[in-house]
């Protein structure tokens, strides 16, 4: 069973969301997601200024063998992306919930955070996939 921090929110498509409590959130993929993907070799991020919509694909993470879409768990404007991943995509494998973050969004509808899963609910989803 992989690590699922309690202070984050989650989407069923295996993204995590950290509320910065200033109207913005930081988004990444979970430890479980990176384990499924294996060694990442390329990350394609949105551009700062792009608008993302909850549930829509907005980034791609590619491991040695497969490409996988990343869906934005919330709607809003991209205000920062993790540019360090261009040269070091493996950071997502090493620290999925920290230095391996993908992008930061200024929320257009903060109420969307209420629709996301807490750690306990997300853990149940991961466990059901593992059995």
């Amino acid at each position, binding site marked *: 069973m992989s690590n699922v921090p309690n202070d984050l929110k989650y989407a069923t498509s295996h993204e995590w969301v950290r509320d910065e409590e200033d109207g913005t959130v930081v988004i990444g993929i979970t430890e479980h997601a990176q384990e499924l993907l*294996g*060694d990442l*070799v*390329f990350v*394609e991020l949105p551009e700062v200024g792009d608008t993302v919509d909850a549930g829509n694909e907005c980034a*791609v993470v*590619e491991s*040695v*063998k497969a*490409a996988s879409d990343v869906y934005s768990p919330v709607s809003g404007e991209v205000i920062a992306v993790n540019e360090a991943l261009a040269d070091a995509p493996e950071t997502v494998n090493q620290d999925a919930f920290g230095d391996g973050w993908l992008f930061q969004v200024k929320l257009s509808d903060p109420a969307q955070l209420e629709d996301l899963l807490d750690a306990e609910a997300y853990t149940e989803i991961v466990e059901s996939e593992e059995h």
Partner: protein
Amino acid sequence: MGNRTILFDIHNAMGARIVPFGGWDMPLHYGSQLEEHHAVRRDAGMFDVCHMTVVDLTGERVRDFLRHLLANDVARLKEPGKALYSCMLNPEGGVIDDLIVYFMNETWFRMVVNAGTTEKDVAWLSKQAPAFGVDVKPRKDLAMIAVQGPNARMKALPLLPENLSASAADLKPFYAATKGDWFVGRTGYTGEDGFEVVLPESKAVAFWQALADAGVQPSGLGARDTLRLEAGMNLYGSDMDESISPLEAGLNWTIAWEPAERQFIGREAIEVNRENPSNRCFVGLVLTGRGVLRDHQKIFVGDREVGEITSGGFSPTLEKSIALARVEAGVMEHCDVEIRGKRVAAKVVAPPFVRNGKIRVEL
């Protein structure tokens, strides 16, 4: 649940991530596909290839049978133990399978065929064999482990049965030695030196464990694929199949046209295109822009679509994305690949990309 090899439990004990592959549950990796890849290029790794099938062919006319069956010519096999890579074609000239055949003695040849094609291969062999009085015997009782890398032979030799290790130590590339139910070929699918060891199933787990104890890295299908891609070796089902002529899959070198009177199955169909200048070419690509090349991405020169990637991925040795591709004749030097709707620049090269630990293309 798929079929399981005799090594399934020890894979799990060694931390394998298991995935379905051609009807089998096989290890994808044991933690890091990249580390396994590098272990094979720099030291030694091992692969469970028990899902592939050893087929023993016996009979007085077995050599004649194989000269009829295969596009390469087993007349080239003069010394016992010598191996030959060949395509087995259908009458339309498509590739039923690619395989390695070993000359054991005048009444016994051994073939190793792909996992996913075993059933149709054995059916095809069994259909062709009676006319030559040849007996076709798939050896389900045998396991197979590939030990690959610059240090693979050194690490594996002391673990072979005593009466086999001396002859195994003397093997030249593409030769095999055998003793009882053990069989060692100096062959592989990685572009590195090494052995493929066929052994009784009952001995396989202990041999795998002994190799691990000797410092041989257990490696999964993930690394097997990136290694063979770097080595420019075709993957059946991706780079060619029954709808593709070997002439358009980079396999011209495996077709023995001489002697001209040898009528192997499929010859008539492919010979008409033997020197056809409009045959599509099988090339290597190195991505110069950002991204990862994947199977089935379209290739363009200017606005014109000129072909498709047949196997794409990331090369851990080059630290760039590479691919094998089938393109129109005349595509040279540069092209673009469509990745998620965008055109990304790639360089056209001649495979292999890597052999024996050395990069073989200009980047």
